[in-house]
């Protein structure tokens, strides 16, 4: 009986972890220490939660965007080549036309001032390492530095 309780408690512990529910299209950067890998996974779990509640209605849960209205994030050249600008866009919004994978988009991106630097880092880590994207761990220190220099 005690064993059974233990098994359930352990199962509960793993269910809370959540990283296993992230799917197969997640990139785990190589060469991270055990500690960093754990933090990375935490970022991914939190990032997914933020992504689904704040970003997915336009960019879609699978990161493919919506027609010519909202650009994709999955394998999006603009995102992959402009990490700093993308970080600024998430926090401050964006209203200029933008070309992603050869298509021009011009819908405005709303600002997300309510997101903390850590939350921006989490959601950037998520979109940066999901759906075939391989941008690596985008940590809160880096995001804070970048956000200081947005124009």
């Amino acid at each position: 009986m005690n064993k059974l309780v233990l098994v359930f408690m352990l199962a509960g512990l793993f269910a809370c972890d959540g990283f296993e529910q992230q799917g197969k299209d997640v990139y785990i950067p190589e060469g991270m220490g055990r500690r960093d890998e754990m933090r990375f996974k935490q970022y991914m779990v939190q990032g997914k939660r933020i992504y689904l509640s704040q970003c997915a209605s336009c960019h879609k849960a699978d990161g493919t965007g919506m027609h010519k209205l909202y650009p994709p994030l999955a394998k999006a050249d603009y995102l992959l080549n402009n990490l700093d600008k993308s970080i600024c866009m998430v926090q401050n919004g964006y209203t200029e036309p933008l070309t992603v994978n050869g298509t021009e988009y011009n819908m405005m991106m709303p600002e997300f001032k309510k997101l903390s630097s850590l939350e921006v880092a989490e959601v950037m880590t998520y979109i940066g390492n999901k759906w075939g994207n391989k941008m690596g761990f985008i940590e809160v220190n880096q995001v804070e530095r970048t956000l200081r220099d947005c124009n």
Partner: protein
Amino acid sequence: MNRHTWLLVFLILGCTEAKNSFELPVLGRPKIVTREVNGEMISDTLSHRIDRFSFVNQDSVIVTNDTFKDKIYVADFFFTSCPTICPVMKQQMLRVYDKYKEEDQLAILSHTIDPEYDTVGLLNDYASRLGVSSDKWHFVTGEKDEIYEIGESSYMVVANEDENAPGGFIHSGAFLLVDQQGQIRGVYDGTLEEQVDLLIKDISRLLASTNSHE
């Protein structure tokens, strides 16, 4: 199978049969009007209908009730800079559009509730980016008060400015199914896939019942 199982099967079949043949209700509060005919007072019960309206669509064409003469249409309220439910609503409305692309008796009417920002030019760009045709799906703008008024009194949905809401407006995500007489025959949550599945079924049902009456 024993007797009870057969009974159950018949019951289930019976229910499905009834469901397929029922008529969609006419929604809204009916109005009772009295008029005089040959010196006698006669009361008529008039169903709730969409008021007269006149808006401008993405091609600068004037859209009125007559645009939807002999047609049924699905109406909704949105704004292009809406960061929350509108993209989801548009994705769902696209399903309706794609399903009835070739059906001339169905149209779609999307009202912007932010006419200051959503100009004709912007709505035109929005529609073409969605890849939809303007003779089927009208994106209309007009006098702000008229849009809010028709939203609340005719379509019975909420549409208003609210500086605390994301994007600055508060509005319902409802899709409304309107018949050839301007009567509302169904209200659906445009953010939920299963509700839009139901809308798609109800459109077919309404089209079928119209064609059988002719």
